[in-house]
């Protein structure tokens, strides 16, 4: 078991390194530096600023010193918000985004999982078509469409829920969570339905029935274990998607999270911010992928045995 985990962890390191390197050089290649901004800056001032932020050094040296900083956990100062380091900004935005992501994930898992399982029990009937059509809507309506629509209906026309902010007014977390979670709910619904259908057609389900178990026990005790594996395997990519989806949702609902910072940093050419956030988010995604892979493998006894749990 531990061999598998450490093997995968080792694999993750080069990936992260590639992310850091590629991002670093990509950002440097962009036309326009952080200080070629709105106001015209006098050359001497610009030179001084660049020296301060070490932009006058050759790129390879900048790279190495950045790596050094990273090893110490220092993402560097923000170019656009003087006096504030990237670490601070990440620390400010992360909890918000994390909370949003968590709620969205919960929405996706609970609603999606339930819908898929229920639909799979009576395929090709209304019990199947209704949840799956709803799921289809979730997939086909992107969050940047669904969000505004929900805002329009619930926030403006009906005036039931607040339209922006996070934690300022009660209930302002509901719409963003639903918006972000809905397309993942849809994917999870389809995955769990497919997984359950596959499992329910297996012979061992018939054996369970032949033992006299009532149908609900057949489903919960026997079918769910295997049927949910595809959902668990999907959690990794879902997490990555949620993180990127947060960009949009945070923009629409004016939420001060990491996603919004990232978009702004991208526009502002805030090198260190871009770098820092990219590296941080990427590392999170890689780790989460690893976790979900391990979990899915563990759920399958055949794979579990491979790692010496005999």
């Amino acid at each position, binding site marked *: 078991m531990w061999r598998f985990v450490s093997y995968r962890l080792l694999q993750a390191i080069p990936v992260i390194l590639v992310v850091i390197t590629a991002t670093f050089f990509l950002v440097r290649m962009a036309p326009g530096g952080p200080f070629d901004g709105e106001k015209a800056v006098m050359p001497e001032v610009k030179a001084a600023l660049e020296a301060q932020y070490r932009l006058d050094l050759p790129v390879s040296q900048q790279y190495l010193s950045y790596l050094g900083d990273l090893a110490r956990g220092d993402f560097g100062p923000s170019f656009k918000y003087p006096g504030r380091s990237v670490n601070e900004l990440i620390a400010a935005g992360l909890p918000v985004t994390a909370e949003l992501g968590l709620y969205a994930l919960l929405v996706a898992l609970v609603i999606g999982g339930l819908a898929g399982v229920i639909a799979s029990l009576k395929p090709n009937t209304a019990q199947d078509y209704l949840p799956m059509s709803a799921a289809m809507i979730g997939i086909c309506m992107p969050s940047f469409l669904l969000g505004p629509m929900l805002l329009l209906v619930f926030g403006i026309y009906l005036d039931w829920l607040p339209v922006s902010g996070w934690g300022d007014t009660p209930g302002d977390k509901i719409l963003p969570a639903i918006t972000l979670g809905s397309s993942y709910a849809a994917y999870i619904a389809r995955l769990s339905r497919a997984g359950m259908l596959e499992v329910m057609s297996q012979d*061992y389900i018939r*054996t369970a*029935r*032949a*033992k*006299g178990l009532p149908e609900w026990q057949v489903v919960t005790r026997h079918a769910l274990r*295997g049927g949910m594996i595809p959902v668990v395997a999907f959690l990794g990519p879902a997490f990555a998607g949620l993180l990127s989806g947060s960009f949009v949702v945070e923009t629409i609902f004016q939420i001060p999270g990491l996603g919004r910072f990232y978009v702004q940093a991208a526009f502002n050419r805030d090198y260190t911010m871009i770098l820092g956030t990219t590296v941080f988010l990427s590392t999170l995604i890689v780790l989460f992928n690893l976790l979900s892979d391990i979990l899915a493998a563990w759920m*399958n006894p055949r794979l579990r045995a491979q790692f010496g749990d005999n």
Partner: protein
Amino acid sequence: MALLEVSDLKVSFVTRMGTNRAVDGISFTVDTGKITAIIGESGSGKSVACYSLLGLIPQPPGSIDGGTALFNGKDLLKASEAQLREIRGRDIAMIFQDPMTCLNPYMTVGKQLVEPLCFHKQVSKEQAKQRALELLEEVGIREPESTFDCFPHQFSGGMRQRVMIAMALINEPKLLIADEPTTALDVTIQAQILKLIGELQSKRDIGVIFISHDLAVVADIADQIVVMQEGKIVEGGDSEHIFHHAEHPYTQKLLSAIPADSKAPMPGKQEPLVQVSDLCTWFSDTKTREPVKAVNGVSFDINRGEVLGLVGESGSGKSTIGRSILRLVPVTSGEVSFDGTQVTALEGRVLKDMRRRMQIIFQDPFASLNPRMTVYDTLAEPLLLHGLENRKSVAAGVLKLMDDVGLARSFVRKYPHEFSGGQRQRIAIGRALATRPEFIVADEPVSALDVTIQAQILELMKNLTSQLGTALMIITHNFGIIARYADRLNVMYAGKIRESGNAEQVYLRPRHPYTVGLLNSVPRLDRPATERLDPIEGEIPDPGNLPSGCAFKPRCRWATVECELTEPVLEQVEGRQMVACFESKSVSDSVGIVLQ
């Protein structure tokens, strides 16, 4: 006393093509303490009938249209779902064909085992576990404690089936329904399980319904036999009557498929066409990196025009040999020569020419035909490839091939999925014969077909190859059938040939302990009725993990110390028979006495 009385049962299914009357008015009884066998080929309705007794068929699209099934005075067909659930697993239990797919791979064996007990009766977890362990021991599992906590995939087919039997019996049901419980198992394991079922049944004095497509399998254990065809019962009675005085033509056809004798040996011309020396084909296990010694030092000849039978169970290496000779898998060491030329090193043009002279027929007729090519495409391909026909003449060539294999010419533009299994196999045979090869390997050519079709296809192959003078190597696990068609036999076990000789000799006077055991496990009619099955103990070895010395030793009755230390080699004994065993003399002596 009748435990179960079924009268006029009718079950139908609604399909795309209309309503299918799967069970069309059948009546039979099962008595306590007796085994009733229901025999029929695929589509006969035998399984559907029994599943409907417990309400296990999906009700749309299936429906029970009529009849009664009295169990303990109660009509099962009219029982409510709740009542049926009481009965399932408690009064009537079932075991199924494929133990791999019938056990939940995500739950431990123990958990699944105690489930029916805990559900139907109020027992504590410890009591349930205790009972489960007792049963595991009773069904012949050697380490019940550790088995309890393991997962199904960690066991062999035979052991899994034992677990299923234990699971079925844990509530001491009055009736056991066994749906083809041994079909997916190797012959020697099948014999073990049959014996086990027989013993458990008589010990508990319960009634058993044994469903099978193979009349021979139930020869030793059934008291009553019911024969079904297309939803109806064509004949029924006690087994003595059926086996010796069967009246219905269908029953007689089923009976004739059972080996009762072997044919006389051919006065063989000894002209070797294919020569295999010291062939080793090893694979490497992707997980453990250990070598899997599928074929582990095999040498034999195949003579021109002869039919050689290669007999063995799973793990014997028989399929791999066929593929090795044809260069479909890479050979690890050793040599194969065809008509004097080394096959193992050929490439390019020369290899292509060689391929024209050697062909192969596979087991699964569906998988061996490209589903997107018509019969015409499939048969024309080899003809055109090797220049036997040109664009203009190939159509006529294809039609002639279809005549040869007995396929109606009007089917020439149809696709494989539009044919039955037997017909598809004919197409495959046609393809193999198209290039007029000198040697054909047939890898389990009839195992996937119904029993009544098997004989047809084997006859066809035999006739065609003898007409053309083609040598035929038939690979099979079915000792009974092959003895009738082969001139010579090689018996394989764990990657090596253990015995070899004329078919009749090997069949009637086996000299290797494994061959003896194999023959004992094959259900036969010419055995005296009182002599029950005598299965070999133990499991088939894993080619990735072979024991030292003679690989058969752990299961051998005649084994001595020497057998564990050194490996016996194939040696000539009498006539042209060859055996790899130190004790072959004592083996053949004891066998000779029994078979007199």
